[in-house]
């Protein structure tokens, strides 16, 4: 006791003793309450995760307000399609789970479900953006935790979190209904728990990692690769440390939950669409789109490993900046040659690179950058945002490079903070102009790419002006944004997601007043291909926007 006892400062000794609280002395004064609350807030605000979360939340809200004001929340047609799916599940001619469809994985849409019911939130896009914004904040917090865990320093954690949160492309995407932010969040969370599991081997960490993997597998197919990589780490690590029996048990505990999303998705496809691999082979699958693109434009990366790797690497550089990529590469090398027990687990962050390069090589995906353009081709940014999935890896390895540099220079804490501040400043210098000039890489595809949303807006506006109160045969596949922008009641549309009425309308086009088709759609248009020959005799073409055509029934 004597060694622990510290003499109070003299002013404290001289101060009058505090008045004891006696029963019946009344409730605490409002002043006291205020002091207690202030004290709690001060204590709370000192928690690094809270600081990171608050900064990320402020960034997120500011970005949403900015992009909403600039009218860019719906720049990606896919963003509109995402929350249209959520809307269909809850409000449509035939609501239900089948409306999730087969092409996109369902979790992003499922997260929007509680919000799309509210008409205001749906119309202004917040219903689609809010889950993504929350994911962004969570990603920032977990990136801090991951950096701190790997580097054993708060400075490392802050650097990693800022490198992630200040990326201009992510700042844009998190304000929209796109699914990339959700996947990045899951990537960071699963890596954090995997790394922590390799350190303390807590089963609960392994389950949390598996849960994050499960979520990732239900957001984007890249999540499947992440989960496979994590499974390999789990098996290998346990086998090396404890042998086969424990490795089998750990693999089971991880795999059952981690891959539940993959199995569940296949079962869903089988139950609702009679094909367990419908997401891979169906008419709306990425593979089908890849075949279409190959036919139309040629896929240069198909069976070209070097070009596939080059394309994806170039997209990573375009998304995060060359200097940052070089520094992160150095961090990766430093990390791999070190003795950290976390080396293998952190390498899971590299899985999206392998997955994307492989999918480009196999021709089931397309990604183009303006730097790599074939002879006679116009520069495009198609799917360049896919490279953003490498952002958690870049953020962590950048933090490793900077922290190790400071550590080897034996910098004091003050110097470390100063260097971290300079690095943050540089990131801000890189980020702010891109945000304010709308020049972030993720925005280039919708603004200057091959799938602009203008024609969708025009189709929607036309329908709003001319087709109110009448039924419209249209497909969600190419026209989800147009349906949204038409701002008509959900039941006005007869779509491919309403199986029975849709097929009735295809065979009896007279049951609808309007037909909208896109004969040259990048994706499959089931209206165009499903209508009975001769239908055009009863309809007249009244408007054409880009490749979209609007027909009205002859009365």
């Amino acid at each position, binding site marked *: 006791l004597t060694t622990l006892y510290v003499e109070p400062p003299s002013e404290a000794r001289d101060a009058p003793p505090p008045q004891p609280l006696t029963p019946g002395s009344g409730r605490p004064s409002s002043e006291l309450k205020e002091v207690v609350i202030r004290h709690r807030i001060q204590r709370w605000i000192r928690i690094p995760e809270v600081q990171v979360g608050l900064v990320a939340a402020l960034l997120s809200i500011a970005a949403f307000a900015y992009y909403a004001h600039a009218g860019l929340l719906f720049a990606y047609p896919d963003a509109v399609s995402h929350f249209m799916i959520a809307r269909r599940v809850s409000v449509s001619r035939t609501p*239900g*789970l089948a409306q999730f469809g087969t092409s996109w994985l369902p979790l992003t849409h499922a997260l929007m479900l509680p919000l799309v019911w509210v008409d205001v939130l749906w119309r202004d896009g917040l219903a689609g953006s809010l889950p993504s914004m929350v994911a962004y904040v969570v990603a920032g917090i977990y990136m801090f935790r991951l950096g701190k865990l790997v580097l054993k320093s708060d400075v490392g954690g802050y650097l990693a979190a800022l490198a992630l949160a200040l990326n201009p492309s992510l700042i844009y995407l998190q304000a929209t209904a796109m699914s990339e932010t959700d996947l990045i969040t899951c990537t960071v969370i699963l890596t954090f728990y995997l790394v922590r599991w390799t350190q303390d081997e807590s*089963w609960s960490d392994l*389950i949390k990692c598996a849960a994050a993997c499960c979520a990732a597998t239900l957001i984007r197919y890249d999540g499947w690769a992440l989960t496979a990589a994590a499974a390999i780490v789990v098996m290998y690590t346990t086998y090396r440390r404890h042998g086969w*029996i*424990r490795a*089998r*048990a*750990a693999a*089971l*505990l991880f795999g*059952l*939950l981690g891959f*539940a999303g993959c199995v*569940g998705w296949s*079962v869903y496809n089988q139950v609702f669409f*009679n094909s367990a691999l419908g997401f891979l082979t169906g008419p709306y699958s990425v593979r089908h789109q890849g075949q279409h693109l190959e036919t139309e434009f040629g896929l240069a990366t198909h069976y070209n490993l070097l070009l596939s790797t080059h394309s994806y690497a170039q997209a990573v550089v375009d998304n995060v900046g060359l200097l940052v990529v070089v520094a992160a590469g150095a961090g990766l090398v430093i990390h791999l040659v070190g003795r950290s027990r976390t080396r293998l687990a952190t390498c899971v962050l590299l899985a999206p690179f392998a997955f994307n390069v492989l999918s480009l090589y196999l021709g089931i995906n397309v990604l183009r950058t303006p730097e790599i353009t074939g002879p006679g081709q116009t520069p495009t940014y198609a799917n360049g945002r896919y490279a953003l999935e490498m952002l958690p890896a870049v953020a962590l390895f950048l933090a490793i490079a900077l922290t190790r540099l400071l550590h080897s220079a034996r910098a004091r804490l003050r110097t470390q903070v100063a260097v971290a501040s300079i690095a943050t400043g540089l990131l801000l210098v890189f980020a702010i102009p891109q945000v304010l000039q709308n020049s972030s890489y993720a925005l280039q595809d919708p603004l200057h790419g091959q799938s602009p949303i203008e024609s969708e807006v025009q189709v929607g506006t036309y329908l709003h002006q001319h087709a109110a109160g009448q039924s419209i045969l249209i497909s969600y596949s190419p026209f989800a944004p147009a349906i949204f922008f038409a701002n008509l009641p959900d039941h006005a549309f007869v779509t491919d997601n309403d199986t029975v009425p849709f097929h009735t309308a295809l065979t009896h086009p007279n049951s609808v007043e309007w037909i909208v088709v896109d004969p040259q759609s990048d994706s499959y248009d089931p209206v165009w291909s499903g209508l009975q020959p001769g239908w055009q005799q009863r309809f007249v073409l009244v408007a054409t926007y880009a490749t979209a055509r609007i027909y009205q029934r002859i009365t």
Partner: protein
Amino acid sequence: MQTFGELPAITQALPAVQDDGQRWTRWGAAEHGAKEGMGSMATALLFLGAALLLAFTLLVPQAIVIVELALITLVYLLAGGQKLASLIRGMQVVPGQVTADPPDPLPFYSVLVPLHHEQAILPVLVKRLSALDYPVDRLEILLLVEEDDRETRWALGNIDLPDQFHVVVAPAGKPTTKPRALNVGLAHALGVYCVVYDAEDRPEPDQLKKAVARFAQADSKVVCLQARLGIYNTDQSWLTRLFSLDYLIWFHALLPGLDLVPLGGTSNHVRTRALRQLGGWDPYNVTEDADLGVRIARAGLSIGLLDSTTWEEAVPSPLAWLRQRSRWVKGYLQTYLVHMRNPLKTLKDLGIGQFVTFQGAIGASMLTLLINPLMWALTITYFIAKGTSTGAGIEALFPTPVYYGALLCLVIGNFLYVYLLVYTAIRYGMERLAHYALLGPLYWALMSVGAWMGLIDLIIHPHRWALTRHGVSPEAVSA
């Protein structure tokens, strides 16, 4: 076949039960228990209701079946949710940890061991129970043998029993059940506390001391402590492995999460006086332990868990397992029917929380076991006949909310149970069995077969005790 002539004199037989003791042998808890319960008006009405429901289902299929399926789905959702919540809650705690030394001097302790055709295992039993770390002058081990069980009595006459062992012969009579024998033993028990062990049990040697210490530190309302049960012949067959997992999840995860403990089989340590006041065991109930658990709760008393394990034998063959399981289900059904004769009284006695647990852990768990095969058959038929008129007919039975509820139970519910089984195996040191958890659905299918056997047996032979043969594993007959 061995024949028995004049039985050898048993050296440590206790005198015949006195008149006042007859109460235990004749009545026990039966005056409030299964015999009356099974014959009561309420039970008759329950069976009548079930028969009417069946008749209506056959006569007016669709409307009635839709309502039934909706109710069944609701039961699945509520009972499944309650079970999952209990499992997760139970995993948060290590129950019944003993933090104090037992009092000195130690109180007198009675160990009750009912025997029925257990002659083969007897020498090992004596050796195992002799290993109990408890002063022999403070301990009595009462071997309870039926008067007409000549084989066991013969074996008892030919064995040298240590001083703490005594033989009690239960007079011939009906019903010939374990609880009736226990009631006879209870009449003789001199201990402040008593515990029940089965013939093949291998309790941890310090279990009695732990129980005494735990009773000393527990509230006086805690009248019973349930020790964990484990399996010592785990690796004998696939069934014993699954049985081990079943016990693991039941005793490590589920029981600690329940606020009403249906006592399990053996190793129930009880304050003898309280047990007598409760009326002993119900001789007509074939899971007298589960019934006693409910009666303790209804009396406003409580059951604690003891951080000690009794190892016992799992039946290795499916047929014997089914017989045992059918008895358990039969007993649970008896318990449910007895305590639901007057639901309002039971609700008043237990309070809302425990009443809900009673409904979920005893009522709904048996109901779902019985219904599972029907639902599985419906699901399989649907997938086979999808796209045909039969498939459409099944679809029509599931309105959207019922369909999604049933889907949730089928997919998420079953997945979570399998996953928790894997986790339990790993967490509680049986990681070598983790992959057997994947056979969980097969085990549940067997449980349903046992449940139907139990229900049929309940109707045909309400009070017959289907004896489980012990000593069939090598571990059971080695000390």
